[in-house]
């Protein structure tokens, strides 16, 4: 019994040293550090968004208090003057619109801040669900083999042969415009790569001597699979998931942009970009800044993921 705990402690020490080394490698790369800092910054802003900006600013009717003492009309169609910078004609106070206003005359910076939690939350949910679904199926398929493996593989084949965006679009257009439909539609497209990734990992781990040793010691299948094999195969999944966060934000907002948004006035980056598209030549800043925000968030996650891949790749060690 004592032996066992000692072995486990040794295992943990080795793992801890490994993690320390990874952190060292991670910190050595300036780009990866930049990516990490930017992602953390956006996550913190998203968490605090409702404290930084009054969420009622996003409403397009009814709310007239605070800094916007006027009734909102859709400016691009109502031929209102378009504002970027200080504006006195439209507003009472010395309001300064750092990034200009959007089609409803709302401060674009505030709208982008309010959009962050929407985009990040959805991206996170979608990636986590898709990754969990995909890795579990992939791990079971790889470990079990046989007919189950074959069936799972053929199903992913079908999904790989699909035009991904079309599937999501068809799905979203058939089930109506809601955030939940979009989440479901994107998850539907996003889980198969995780199956392939995890299955490949499990197949290569399964052949390693330690699995045989564990089985010889009488460890149960599920225990071997989940406690040992998956733990060792998890790194590439982490990398993939981090990079997918960026990709999912882009896809989610693209669907919103293409008109699957539940409400045109919802502060969401793709929605804001769609709004800016309506006045692309007269008010280019709306689409410019909303798209730029997407680019920066996605780039930050991709930098982290890319750096993680370098760090976690054992062949790049030493």
């Amino acid at each position, binding site marked *: 019994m004592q032996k066992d705990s000692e072995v486990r402690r040794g295992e943990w020490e080795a793992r801890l040293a490994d993690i320390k080394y990874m952190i060292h490698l991670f910190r050595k790369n300036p780009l990866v550090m930049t990516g990490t800092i930017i992602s953390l910054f956006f996550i913190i802003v998203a968490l605090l968004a409702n404290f930084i900006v009054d969420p009622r600013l996003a409403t397009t009717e009814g709310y007239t208090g605070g800094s916007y003492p006027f009734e909102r009309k859709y400016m691009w169609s109502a031929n209102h003057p378009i504002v970027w910078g200080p504006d006195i004609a439209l507003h009472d106070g010395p309001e300064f619109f750092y990034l200009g206003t959007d089609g409803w005359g709302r401060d674009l910076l505030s709208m982008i801040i309010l959009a962050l939690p929407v985009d990040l939350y959805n991206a996170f949910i979608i990636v986590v669900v898709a990754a969990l679904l995909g890795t579990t199926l992939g791990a079971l398929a790889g470990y079990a083999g046989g007919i189950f493996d074959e069936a799972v593989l053929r199903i992913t084949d079908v999904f*790989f042969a699909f035009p991904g965006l079309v599937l999501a679009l068809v799905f979203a257009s058939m*089930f109506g415009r809601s955030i939940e439909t979009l989440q479901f539609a994107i998850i539907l497209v996003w889980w198969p790569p995780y199956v392939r990734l995890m299955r490949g990992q499990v197949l290569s781990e399964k052949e390693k001597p330690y699995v045989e040793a564990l089985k010889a010691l009488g460890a149960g299948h599920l225990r071997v699979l989940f406690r040992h094999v998956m733990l060792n195969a998890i790194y590439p999944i982490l990398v993939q998931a981090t990079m997918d966060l960026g990709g999912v934000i882009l896809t989610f907002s*693209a669907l919103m942009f293409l008109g699957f948004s539940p409400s045109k006035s919802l502060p969401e980056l793709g929605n804001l*970009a769609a709004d800016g*598209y309506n006045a*692309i*030549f007269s008010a280019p800043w709306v689409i410019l800044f909303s798209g730029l925000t997407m680019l920066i968030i996605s780039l930050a996650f991709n930098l982290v993921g*890319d750096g993680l891949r370098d760090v976690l790749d054992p062949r790049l060690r030493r």
Partner: protein
Amino acid sequence: MKLYEYIIRRLILLVFVLLAVSVLIFYLTRGFERGFAPWAPYINEKMTAEQIEEVIKAHGFDRPLHEQYFYWFRDVFNGEWGLTGTWGLGLPANRVFFNRFPRTVELAVFATILTISIGIPLGIISAVKNNKLPDHISRIIALAGYSTPSYWFGFLLQLVFFYYFSLWGLPNLPSSGAPSIATRITGLPILDGLLTGNLGFVWNEFVHLILPSISLSFISLGFLARIVRASMLEVLRQDYITMARSKGLRERVVIYRHALKNALIPAVTLTGIFFASLLGGAMITEYVFSWPGVGQAALLAVGQGDSNFILLYSLVFATIIVLANLAVDVAYAFLDPRIKY
């Protein structure tokens, strides 16, 4: 496994994939009320109620969903893919598709050429100067490529090269659309223009292709550059690279003769798959640039819930993807003398 056995296995898989895709899309597009009535393109105002009834009966639209599938299947087997909705002027889906397909092919070819000619050098620089400034710059370009919302980048290009350039009186690029086709021989507009000697048309078409191609390739060259970098780094660690250096070969020779051929093998896969997915139409880019290809059509069809066109589109796309995967695997065998199927 023999090469032909392998090919046969993949072709059987293709049949399975096509069946599954058609069933899934069929149920998604016909199983809900949201699409337009599938018989709408077949009728007109002059028809009496009985005539409409007859049309509906003839195509099996009054049957339960699973029976409708077999009606659809029967029609497809006879080469009838059904009619499109109002977006396609009620023309047969296959005619709309194959009228538009050459334009998509053109765009795919141009974008792929651009991607390869920028992505591969970027990846090589990144690997050779690993963790130095050129690597960081190339890494940022590559990652920015696939972190960019495609429609957004398209708009920026339009804004700068069309709107601001014309505002400043500079020679500007057209922002959207494509010139109408003069003559049809092979179907590919540029090729036809060259064959008929209509150079004005060729130039016009080419100019219209520039912005969409840049927009498309910017997004994908990042993937390619990263793959090339990763496999190049892997190859540069190999013993035979040490051997090549120990021979006193110039670094250029070491990289281009000894490393590149090995490193490009995975890049070939990616380029093949990328090209195939572009053949399926880069929907958003075609939409943004109003490029009259199949991707734009698919987006329009989805907007109207036009099941006939979506089915045709998905099936062609799935076929292309499966065949491209097969082609890539076969190409492996030629590129790497060690691989034998």
